[in-house]
């Protein structure tokens, strides 16, 4: 429940020309006390504080209390405000001013429950708006005669989805940004049950494990950023491939992870759940970060947020380059995101977002455990230097939201151009089987070269209205989603000796449409009960042209045999056959979702949720007029949450159990280099999460236990972790020294991940993973110096482990039986970053 309204705060100058009041240049929104949020309490606090000659705040006092929890929130926020100092005859002087804070719940009032908008698994302290229409403040200058000054703020809210219960994690990153994260994908770890791995190198999307799902690179998780979808329909590397590397972590303001298909807004790919990134930049002004670290890693980041504009108006550009920590691991990327949020009158907000991203990298791939054990290969070595990839993504999005009475309307359009190319070799020299019609050859190599270019256009929108009935307020929402993808994908096999393609596996042209319509109700029949739910109807249409449908001819011509050609246009017994095969089909999915949330007493809520999700099929499996066989998931969650304000801290806890059944699971195939369809499966599990936030610390801890099995055999699903523990901790403190009158702030963050032994094929188990990432920083505005260390303990760990057959010619005879392979986890890497933040203004 993030009202999330960046205030436009305007300090109006006094009429006295010789005196200039302090002007706010950097503000931090107050966090809404969780308990008050849960109990739907509003209040107002007025502070009096001194803005010293350097523009910093000192000696804040409560002059009008709103209760301890509100007072503390206001004091914590204002302590980080920065002003341009008051001036008298052009000379900076200290001034004492009054600042009112109005903690207002967002209109329309939501249901009577502690709408969990959790941070990392717990209800989040939502930002309180500064005053919607603040009373006049008083300015008393210390020294010069007191002058009147008025602070005025305007608040504009943005409609947010309502919570779906215990498995709905609305993560406000906040100070947990102090924990080192190399990519925005790592923010997902703030939600329980998530493990990220990567066998494809920097630039390749992370593989996501979520609550017992091996979602590969997003095939089972619906990802979006600012409402713009990220999953690529029809990507040959995996239908739904989602590369989050274009998102600059510093501009992620919040993240909603909904584990399970419980919200009617969730569409295609939301089988395990969904993750929605929201972008924003709190710091106003112009910032520049320059970092240099281990393995010649360089990063330059420019950030700017126009003073006086909303936190959702910003620009960010990143350049990153590394030589990599082992053989063949270099990477280069650049990313830029610009967003502008403006207003049309008092009731309409619009937003325009532009994004561009390009990356290129090499990857080491897998190493056979026996080769590492015998010294034939090093831990960070590679077999095939041809592995790597390229990616580009450019998108534009426009969104407008308006309010008319009690109804909110929002519409958004987006367009995305993307391209990915992957070169991966999982099996070495194993799959190039001699075919009779081919000329004699030995194994030419299993390097796969997959390219996919996509063009996506679409729109989404909704109308949400509130109505009063039976003495309570309820909500109803109708929404739509429309998306059209044109995708061209090819997959080649590359000959190791020449680096030239010797075979075409796939050549697909796909046109895929997805039209979704949903309705969602939020009813409050009783003061302690909220019912939320609705249904979604999705229509998927596929128009596929397989340009390489014929790979062999049963009776090849004696005079013109196809020999090694891939996409055959041949005469078979005199019958001509073109190599292409068009196919069109469509199918629809009906997806009911419902949640019940019970709040029997203050601070405590129970919830139960049920929902059905789908994943559309990979276009290469489309058959003419055969209805699209969706993979369907049915999921149920039961949980409880508890929020409480403690002396000097806010505590939030939650726990729950869940079960998800999938009728067609995805199983990793090393020969295909991606996931392929498997049988039905069931996941049952338990999660727990806690977050404790205080004035100088923030701690998030989550634990997930899952048992994922195939329904037909009862055997464990390989590769998915059954135990994931994650802790994120940050502390910050203003030091007792203020060189030059400017406060010195020290901060530190540490993130710890523990993953139990994952089941592997053939009854095997992987190693455990235990890693710690940490950072320390020292800030004296406008400068900040930070030192980050990933894998602080320098543990030599295997990020991914696989059991399958490969032959990398590391031994004299072919190796054909399944053995252990691994992808190396990164060693300790240090990076020193210098940050400068300049400018700003109200």
């Amino acid at each position: 429940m993030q009202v999330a309204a960046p205030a436009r705060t305007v300090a109006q100058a006094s009429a006295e020309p010789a005196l200039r009041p302090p002007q706010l240049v950097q503000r931090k929104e107050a966090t809404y006390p969780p308990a008050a949020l849960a109990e739907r309490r509003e209040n107002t606090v007025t502070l009096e504080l001194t803005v010293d000659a350097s523009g910093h705040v000192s000696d804040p006092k409560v002059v009008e209390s709103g209760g301890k929890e509100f007072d503390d929130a206001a004091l914590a926020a204002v302590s980080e405000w920065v002003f341009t100092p008051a001036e008298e005859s052009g000379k900076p002087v200290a001034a004492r001013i009054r600042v009112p804070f109005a903690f207002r719940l967002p209109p329309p009032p939501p249901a009577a429950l502690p709408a969990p908008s959790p941070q990392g698994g717990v209800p989040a302290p939502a930002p309180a708006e500064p005053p919607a229409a603040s009373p006049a403040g008083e300015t008393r200058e210390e020294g010069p005669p007191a002058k009147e000054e008025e602070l005025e703020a305007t608040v504009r809210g943005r409609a947010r989805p309502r919570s779906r219960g215990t498995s709905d994690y609305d993560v406000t990153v906040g100070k947990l940004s102090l924990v080192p994260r190399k990519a925005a994908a790592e923010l997902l770890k703030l939600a329980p049950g998530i493990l990220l791995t990567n066998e494809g190198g920097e630039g390749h999307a992370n593989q996501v494990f979520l609550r017992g799902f091996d979602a590969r690179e997003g095939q089972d998780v619906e990802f979006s950023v600012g409402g713009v979808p990220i999953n690529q329909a029809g990507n040959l590397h995996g239908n739904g491939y989602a590369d989050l590397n274009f998102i600059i972590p510093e501009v992620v303001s919040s993240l909603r992870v909904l584990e399970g298909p419980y919200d009617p807004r969730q569409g295609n790919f939301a089988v395990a759940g969904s993750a929605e990134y929201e972008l924003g930049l709190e710091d106003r002004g112009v910032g520049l970060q320059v970092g240099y670290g281990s393995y010649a890693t360089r990063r330059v980041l420019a950030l700017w947020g126009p003073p006086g504009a909303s936190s959702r108006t910003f620009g960010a550009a990143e350049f990153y380059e590394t030589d990599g920590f082992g053989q063949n691991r270099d990477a280069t990327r650049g990313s830029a995101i610009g967003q502008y949020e403006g207003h049309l009158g008092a009731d309409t907000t619009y937003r325009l977002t532009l994004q561009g991203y390009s990356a290129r990298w090499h990857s080491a791939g897998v190493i056979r455990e026996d080769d590492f054990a015998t010294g034939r290969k090093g831990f960070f070595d590679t077999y095939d230097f041809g592995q790597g990839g390229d990616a580009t993504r450019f998108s534009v999005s426009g969104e407008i939201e308006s309010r008319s009475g009690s109804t909110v309307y929002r519409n958004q359009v987006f367009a995305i151009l993307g391209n990915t190319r992957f070169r991966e070799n999982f099996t070495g020299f194993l799959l190039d089987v001699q075919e009779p019609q081919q000329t004699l050859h030995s194994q030419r190599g299993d390097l796969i070269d997959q390219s996919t270019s996509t063009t996506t256009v679409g729109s989404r929108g909704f109308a949400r209205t509130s109505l009063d009935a039976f003495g309570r307020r309820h909500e109803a929402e109708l929404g739509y989603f429309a998306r059209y993808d044109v995708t061209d994908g090819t997959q080649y096999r590359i000959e190791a000796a020449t680096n030239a393609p010797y075979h075409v596996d796939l050549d697909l042209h796909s046109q895929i449409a997805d039209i979704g319509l949903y309705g969602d109700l939020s009813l409050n029949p009783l003061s302690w009960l909220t019912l939320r739910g609705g249904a979604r109807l999705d229509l998927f249409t596929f128009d596929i042209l397989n340009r390489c449908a014929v790979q062999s001819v049963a009776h090849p011509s004696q005079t013109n045999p196809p020999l090694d050609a891939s996409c055959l246009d041949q005469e078979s017994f005199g019958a001509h056959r073109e190599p292409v095969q068009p196919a069109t089909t469509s199918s629809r999915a009906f997806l009911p979702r419902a949640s019940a949330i019970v709040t029997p007493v203050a601070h405590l809520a129970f919830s139960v949720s049920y929902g059905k999700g789908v994943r559309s099929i990979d276009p290469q499996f489309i058959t003419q007029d055969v209805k699209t066989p969706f993979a369907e998931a049915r999921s149920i969650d039961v949980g409880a949450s508890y929020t409480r304000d403690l002396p000097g801290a806010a505590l939030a806890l939650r726990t729950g159990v869940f079960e998800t059944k999938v009728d067609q699971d995805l199983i990793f195939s090393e020969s295909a280099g991606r996931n392929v369809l498997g049988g039905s499966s069931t996941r049952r599990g338990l999660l727990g999460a806690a977050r404790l936030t205080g004035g100088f610390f923030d701690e998030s801890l989550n634990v997930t236990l899952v048992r994922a099995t195939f329904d037909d055999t009862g055997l464990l699903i390989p590769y998915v972790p059954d135990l994931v523990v994650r802790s994120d901790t940050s502390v910050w403190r203003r030091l007792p020294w203020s060189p030059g009158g400017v406060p010195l702030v020290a901060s530190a963050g540490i993130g710890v991940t523990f993953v139990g032994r994952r089941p592997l094929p053939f009854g095997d188990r992987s190693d455990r993973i235990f890693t710690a990432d940490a950072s320390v920083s020292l800030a004296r505005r406008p400068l900040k110096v930070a030192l980050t260390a990933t894998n602080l303990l320098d543990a030599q760990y295997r990020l991914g482990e696989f059991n399958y057959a490969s032959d990398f010619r590391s031994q004299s005879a072919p190796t054909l039986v399944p053995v252990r392979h691994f992808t190396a986890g990164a060693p300790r890497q240090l990076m020193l970053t210098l940050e400068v933040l300049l400018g700003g203004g109200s």
Partner: protein
Amino acid sequence: MRDARMLLGLALCACGSSTGGALVTFHAAAAGPADSVSGQPLVFTNALGYQVTLARARLHIGGIYLNRSVPSSGAQATSCVLPGIYSGEVTSPLDVDVISPVPQPFPADGEGTSDLSQTAEVWLFGSDVNATADPTVLADVTGTAVQAAGTPIAFTGQFTIGQNRAVPVGDAALPGSSPLCKQRIVTPISVALNLAQGGTLLVRVDPRAWFANVDFARIPPDPNDPAQRKFLDLSQGQPDLAFYGGLRAASGTYFFNWQSP
């Protein structure tokens, strides 16, 4: 409390559950027939009535492979390596004295899975199973043969598999129908065993099968020693073809025994 119990239960379940099967390492050895006598020539009578006294018989095994499937007739007719279905392998080469019944261990242990193996393969090669030329002597034999009251025939032979065993392409549209690797792989040898960690796979090679149909009288004289005869090491002539047929016979020559740990 209930959550705690469930957590404990889940943890225990996870520890006790499996994805099925197991990866195993095992010992491997090869030997001659069990009824041979160590240090003694192997004496036997072949199908053509020759009494053969085999003084020397050595075989170079490039590798041993086990497969979960049973090849069906006509299927995968040209594939030397079948991806993803192998259940055992011993990839360290071994020169084995096949007139000795004593197991001679392969230099390195084998690897595999606990799945039921139904087909075995003996790979006869020196450096590369796909090499167009391979001078490695795979079978090295010396002995004498005598038919009824005839004159004893001293013979010797060294057998290789290279271009001397290449099968000419009969169909221009199917130039890859007979790759040389197929000549080097003896398959399908019928077995039924489940490998287990620490067990031993013993391959007994019966050289009597190599000579089962050899007409020793038709072995040409050795140009370097007219007192004895020598196999040509070519795909021609009854003795060579018969010997080569016995060497590559999927039944009667190679016997796989599994000894549990």
